[in-house]
């Protein structure tokens, strides 16, 4: 049994099921992200764990204890909200101390813990400020400190970085992960930002239409997407329809170009996918399959240039590193691309 067990969890609003047979075990100290688009049920699942929504059926157990019997204020679960939700009438220190005061902790212990938490979030001198006197990033750090001050069993973060600008988001996600690892707290993090989920998580649950489509490490999710949705949602993929010529050796025909994947494939038609970084411009050692195509789009992204080439009916995306001494191919130019057949992913439904 895992530290946090979610079993057959379901939630319906009238006839609409927003979470369907959700199962997950989270180990103590693990950082798990719920990743998915808006309306996929990730926040609803999180809110059921917190106690703000009542499941239609299923069970939530923390350390073997049934959470559904407890009210939100009895669960000892810390929560960080997208909108920070700091109490505007209280100073930073009072906000951090709130949960401890509610629990009846003595003054000395409260002061000590508040100082410790403010130190942890890197704002030791801002205890006397009011929330409106802080930046968005600082407010979210205080919200994190407030949630952690009461030593919760589980920490829930509901899109905590969505309201912040890009640079702060990147630095704060590193800080959140560092604090989580330092304290070893079991964490569930809800986000629709794949980069956030990939960079921070021990495991990711990709959710789609109320279902956990795939649960795995960031490496597994990115490199071995289990469904077409996961493949499309996480990273950039080019989907290629292929005809299987020899199921045993995995020889396929992709728009007339033959390639051997070196693994067994089902008979008939299959959907294969390839990541942009798996395709090289020109010939490359180890990438034996070569195709020619015409450039249809060039996106300059800074260190990387993303290009798209028309190959038969398909448009194949691929990346090259920026080279200040060589211009990237122009739109309309003919190029040779190479890839390793073993890098082609077989996509399930």
């Amino acid at each position: 049994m895992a530290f946090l067990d979610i079993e057959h969890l379901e939630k319906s609003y009238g006839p609409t099921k927003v979470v369907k047979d959700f199962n997950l075990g989270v180990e103590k100290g693990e950082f798990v992200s719920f990743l998915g688009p808006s309306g996929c049920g990730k926040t609803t699942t999180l809110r059921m764990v917190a106690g703000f929504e009542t499941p239609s059926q299923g069970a939530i157990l923390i350390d073997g204890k049934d959470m559904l019997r407890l009210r939100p204020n009895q669960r000892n679960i810390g929560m960080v909200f997208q909108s920070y939700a700091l109490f505007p009438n209280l100073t930073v220190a009072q906000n951090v101390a709130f949960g401890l005061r509610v629990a009846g902790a003595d003054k000395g212990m409260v002061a000590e813990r508040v100082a410790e938490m403010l130190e942890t979030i890197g704002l030791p001198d801002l205890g006397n400020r009011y929330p409106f006197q802080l930046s968005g990033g600082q407010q979210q750090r205080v919200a994190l400190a407030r949630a952690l001050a009461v030593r919760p069993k589980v920490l829930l973060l509901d899109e905590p970085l969505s309201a912040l600008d890009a640079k702060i988001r990147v630095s704060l996600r590193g800080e959140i992960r560092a604090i989580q690892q330092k304290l070893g707290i079991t964490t569930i993090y809800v986000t629709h930002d794949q980069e956030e989920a990939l960079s921070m998580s021990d495991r990711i649950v990709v959710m789609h239409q109320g279902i956990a489509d795939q649960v795995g490490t960031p490496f597994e999710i990115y490199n071995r997407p289990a469904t077409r949705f996961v493949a499309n949602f996480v990273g950039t993929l080019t989907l290629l329809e292929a005809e299987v010529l020899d199921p045993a050796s995995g020889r396929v025909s992709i728009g007339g170009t033959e390639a051997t994947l070196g693994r067994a494939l089902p008979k008939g038609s299959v959907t294969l996918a390839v990541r942009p970084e798996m395709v090289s411009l020109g010939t490359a050692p180890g990438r034996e399959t070569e195709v020619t195509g015409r450039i249809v789009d060039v996106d300059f992204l800074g260190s990387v240039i993303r290009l798209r080439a028309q190959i038969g009916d398909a448009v194949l995306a691929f990346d090259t590193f920026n080279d200040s001494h060589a211009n990237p191919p122009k739109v309309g130019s003919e190029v040779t691309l190479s890839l390793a057949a073993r890098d082609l992913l077989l996509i399930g439904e």
Partner: protein
Amino acid sequence: MKRLFAWLMLAFGMAYFILPLVGLTEFSLSMRRGEYSFDAYRAVLADPRFRDTFSYSVVMALVTIAFGILLVVPTAYWVRLKLPGLRPYVEFVTLLPLVIPAIVIVFGYIRLYNTSSWLPLTGTTTGTNLLLMFGYATLSLPYMYRAVDTGLRTIDVATLTEAAQSLGAGWVTILARVILPNVLVAVLSGAFLTFAIVIGEFTLAALLNRPAFGPYLQLMGANRAYEPMALAVIAFGITWACMGLIQLVTRFSKHTKAAR
């Protein structure tokens, strides 16, 4: 030209409101023939009935405010948090005292709670005071509810509640330590309006036969010339002091500074 017209309109508006007050004040100071004096004010303040009725009304106003806060804040909070669909109906109910005259309310009270009824509140002084307090709370309900509801609109009630719950707070703690302090300015606005209403209210107090300031004002008005004017100026002064206090509280409320 447009600017001149605006100034003229402002001057007209101010004259419309200020001239009667100037006349009132001037008359209240004219008790002594041929010179201005505070004789009328002195006579009023020396009258033991003034002190008795005024202090009675002040106590009633404070009790009404406490009851109003206990009734309205949790109700408005709960409606906003859990029953948003009921908001139009609750608002309608809170507005009813504006269209139902006080005399109808008090006759209803007397009919329902007279000495031969199942709950004979009018049979004792405490019971009648209680009834009067309920009446005052009803009359001030539109102002108190609107003020609190407007205050609640300025904060994210649902998220703050959930944040407090996740930190272990129960409903009473949430209301007392999170919601109420954040709508304090709005609550105080409602409280000062309630105070102003209670101090000048006549119908309920007169028909329930309680020694309040409103009936005393009426009694003086019927029998004296200068003293009622002095009382009216005092009543205006109290109302303005209440309004000034609302401004003061708003200004000195630290955590709302960002919003301004």
